[in-house]
């Protein structure tokens, strides 16, 4: 696609429920990144993918968080048993390939609210 697409744009869920967030990167971009941003804060790194593998999962806050990428394209971030502190904007970005050191293209994010 023309840009990075994320869905849903907004999600309200009850505490304890599972949620899935989706990211569709720019076609041909092999590197994909997930960040989250709490209100008024900077971006917190979660995980990145090169193709379908995730060389760095160090930012995932707990084992309730997981992510996968299939076909070197779409990625889903799953949060199980959501907690109120999971409320944030979840941002996905892609770049042409790792190692080029270039800029990221971000999606518009998914605003997650856990009530």
């Amino acid at each position, binding site marked *: 696609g023309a840009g990075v697409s994320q869905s849903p744009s907004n999600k309200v869920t009850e505490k304890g429920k599972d949620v899935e967030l989706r990211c569709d990167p720019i076609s041909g971009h092999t590197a994909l990144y997930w960040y989250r941003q709490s209100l008024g804060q900077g971006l917190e790194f979660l995980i990145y993918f090169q193709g379908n593998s995730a060389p760095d999962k160090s930012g995932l806050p707990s084992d309730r968080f997981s992510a996968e990428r299939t076909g070197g394209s779409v990625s889903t971030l799953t949060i199980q048993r959501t907690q109120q502190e999971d409320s944030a904007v979840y941002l996905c970005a892609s770049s042409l390939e790792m190692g080029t*050191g270039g800029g990221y293209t971000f999606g518009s994010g998914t605003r997650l609210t856990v009530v």
Partner: protein
Amino acid sequence: SQQGEEDPQALSIQEGENATMNCSYKTSINNLQWYRQNSGRGLVHLILIRSNEREKHSGRLRVTLDTSKKSSSLLITASRAADTASYFCASRGGSEKLVFGKGTKLTVNP
């Protein structure tokens, strides 16, 4: 922990004035990038400066990098109301991920 830290946290200026934002980082980098964010959603890449560069220009933007002080600055000249946004620096070290600061919220008053 966040590697980049922007200064100031908030900046309010009049249209036509220049805006300067600073960023410090903690470890050695391959490059440093600046991004803009409107309304708390997606970020837009503005400019990238490599560790062997000292200054870079793009339109009304000027970025400097001082690796000895581990700092960078973003200058926006002749600011416009449309420049109102949050600006983030992001550093890339030895790993593939970018490490972002907390940002500077810029308000340009018409």
